[in-house]
Each structure stands twice: as C-alpha cells, then as structure tokens.
C-alpha cells in the first residue's frame, strides 16, 4: 500500500467535527449511512474533478447507503473509506469492506464505551458525590473525564482508519480495543463498589434509620435483580417500588 496522501488541516478538522454529528439523521433503513457520507464529504472534495466531478458523486452515492457501527468507532470507518476513495480503490472491494466492518466496529464500541467507559465515568461521578464533592465538581469531573476518552477515541479512529485504509484489522487489534474492556470492567467494579455505599450514606444523611439496614436492603434488591436478570427489569421494578412508596406517603 502506498503512503497516505496528505490531507489539508482544514479538511481533517471538518471531517472530525462532522463525525460528532454522524447519527444526526439516524433512521431504521440506512442507520448512520447518511451520516458517514456527511462526515466524509469534505475529504471527497479532493477527488479528481472536485465537487462537480463524477468521482465525488460516485463516492457520495456509495457512502450514503446503509451503514451501522458504534458512533465513536465510525470514525475508523470514515478514515478508511476516505483513504480508499482517494487511493482509487475498486468500488466492489470498498463496498465489501463497508459491509464487513459494521459488526466488529459495533461490537467493539459497545463493549468499550457503552458497557465500559460510560459506566466507569458514571461510577466515578457517583463516588465524587459520595465523598462530598460539590455539584459543579461532580458535573465537571464526569463531563471532563468522559470526554477525554470520547474525543480521543474519535480522533484515534479517524487517524488510524486513514493510515490503514481498508486494512483496519490491525487497528481493530489494538490493545485498547482488545484488552481495554476487561480493564475498564474491573475499574467499573471497583469504583462502583466504592461509590454506591457512599452515595447511600450521603443521600440519607440525617435520617433516623441505620446505614447498615439501608445498605442491606439495597444489596438485597441488587441481588434479587441480578439473580433474575432477563426475567425482571430493574428499571421497571424501581418504578413500581417508587409508585408504591409514593401512594403510601399520600394515603397514610
């Protein structure tokens, strides 16, 4: 594979910013397909003939079709597709790549971000609240920590995708994507374990009940919900218990 053609900084920046809106027209037919074309469009202007050329129009038509992946790791696909178009890759090969990379990019992103980084940052914010940090501090810690990972992942994806082109398997084998979810899950377990008793302690500060009783009730509820996971939904059980308590508060 030849060296990647150099993209002007302005083009990088436009593509990068548009990546944050990749799900802007999310729908049940092409999913984020239109968003992929939208994000890659500034780079396609560099194709022979510019915006009025047939290469540009063909690329826009190809990439506004169905595509689905984790929104953050879609950056990897956009980088690779831009590189493929600028290298003049065969359209059939590019289409095969688009089809093949949806599943891996979706699964890797879901594990790393939705089931890893997001709950970790939530738990970190809960811990901050539990130890008495102010409202501004809790919000700043959560938004700051989460977005360091978020923005870095999108930036890495775009650069790695553009560097590797259609051979992004090497990027998908990165230690961050392979080992990251395991380490983040352990972090979630540790920080959540720390945070939840402290949240309980702070929220019920000054009440007449014992902390031990509350903790035992919360742990019992968590145990029941975990034991029957799949059969009962924690969110619905929580709503039901709240309704019962609210009715009790009104009628007693």
């Amino acid at each position: 594979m030849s060296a990647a053609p150099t993209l002007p900084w302005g083009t990088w920046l436009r593509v990068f910013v548009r990546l944050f809106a990749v799900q802007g027209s999310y729908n049940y037919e092409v999913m984020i397909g239109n968003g992929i074309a939208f994000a890659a469009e500034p780079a396609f202007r560099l194709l022979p003939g510019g915006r009025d050329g047939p290469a540009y129009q063909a690329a826009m038509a190809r990439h506004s079709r169905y595509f689905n992946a984790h929104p953050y790791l879609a950056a990897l696909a956009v980088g690779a597709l831009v590189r493929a178009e600028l290298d003049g890759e065969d359209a059939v090969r590019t289409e095969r790549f688009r089809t093949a990379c949806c599943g891996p990019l979706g699964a890797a992103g879901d594990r790393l971000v939705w089931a890893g980084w997001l709950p970790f940052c939530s738990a970190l914010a809960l811990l901050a609240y539990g130890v008495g940090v102010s409202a501004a501090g809790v919000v700043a810690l959560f938004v700051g920590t989460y977005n360091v990972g978020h923005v870095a992942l999108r930036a890495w994806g775009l650069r790695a995708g553009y560097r590797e082109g259609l051979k992004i398997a090497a990027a998908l084998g990165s230690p961050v994507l392979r080992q990251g979810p395991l380490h983040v899950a352990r972090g979630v377990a540790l920080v959540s374990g720390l945070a939840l008793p402290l949240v309980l302690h702070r929220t019920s500060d000054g009440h007449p009940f014992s902390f031990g009783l509350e903790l035992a009730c919360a742990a019992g509820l968590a145990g029941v919900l975990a034991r029957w996971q799949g059969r009962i939904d924690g969110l619905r059980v929580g709503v039901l218990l709240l309704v019962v308590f609210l009715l009790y508060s009104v009628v007693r």
Partner: protein
Amino acid sequence: MTDVGTLALLTMLGAVVGLDFVSFPQAMLSRPLVSATLAGLLCGDAGSGLLVGILLECFALETMPFGASRYPEWGPASVAAGAMAALQHGDAVPNARIVPFAVLAGLACAFLGGQTLVWLRHFNLRVAGRYRDELVAGNAAAVLAVQWTGLVVDFGRAGAVTAAFVLVLEPARTVLAGALHAGADAIAVVVVSTIAVGVAGAAVWKVVHTAKGYQWWLLAGGLAGSAMAVLR
C-alpha cells in the same frame, strides 16, 4: 407557576441535552447527573437538582444505548425532574419530600421521551425517502439536507418535549406536595436512594460479571466504600 423566562431556559437546556443524546455531539450532557443538576441551577437550587440527578443516574446505569435498541431518553426527562425538585413555590414544602415524585416523574418522562426518539427515526426515514433519487445519484446537497433536517428536528423535538414535561409536571407537583404526609420528609430520600442504589448495584453486576475476577474488584470496592461511609 414557573415564569416564562425560566421555562424558556429549561426548554433550551432540554433541547441541547436532547440533541446531545444521539444526534450531536454525544458528550453525555444528556446524562441525568448533568441535565438535572443544570436544571436545578436554572431553578435556583443546584443541590436539589444534583440529588435527583444522582438518583436518576443510578437508574440510568441499567440502560445501555446498544445499536438500534429502544431505550429511555434521559436528557429532557432529567431536566424536568431536576426542575421539579429545585423549584421553590413558597408552599413551605421541603424539597426532600418531593424527591420521590421528581425521580418517578423523571423515570416516566424518560420512557415517554424514548418513544419520541422512535418517532424521530421514522420521520428521518420519510425525509430520506423524499430525497431517495438524489441520494442514489450522489447529490451532496441531498445528503446535507437530510442530515441538517434530522439535527434541527431533533433539537426542536427535545425542546418541545422538555417544555411539555415541565408544564404537565408542575401542577401535579403542587397537588402532590399538599397531599404528602408531613412525616414523610425524613424517610423520602432514604427510600428512593435505597431503591436507586439497589437497581444500580444490579446494573453494575450486569456490566462486569463477564470480566475475569470481577467479584474480587467489586468486593474490595464494596468493603472499602462501606468502611469509608461508616467512618465518615
């Protein structure tokens, strides 16, 4: 009643966090602990907003936005819930008593908000269908039009949903505040936080139980957290 200025600010906040949830930029401003705290701040009591936000965040850990699955929308719902907890009505009802209502309202609104996201996706599909021929031909203007329409409509949807939630919940809050037993103040937050922490505990287990050795990390954290809480 909420004055027009506060309602406008809450609507704008709801629109921003609603847009953030899926469309742009997914910076997690839509998470309850952020949205509810900001709503509380706009209503003059960031602390009450944060309390409701933290409790809703415990519930939100239960839902992960995987793929095209349907999930509650937390942003506008948390704005409304944070506002309900923080609004001062001069009715001398302590905000602690209203916390269970605010949290329950937040959960109910999150489910309703999630349904409006489904409608948005069907709307986006109709817009894309209108431009089908241009998209097949590789017309960049059509790609931009579809994308910008989705973004603008999502912004408007989230704002409208937030305003509707606040306008519906506020009278309900007033009625309920009068009906709640005065003795419920002390126990209200305790009960809600016990339920929320229980749900969060199960949600965390769901996330981590496939990781090798997770139980030791969870146990170590739990013991240390409990010890710290007792010693505080």
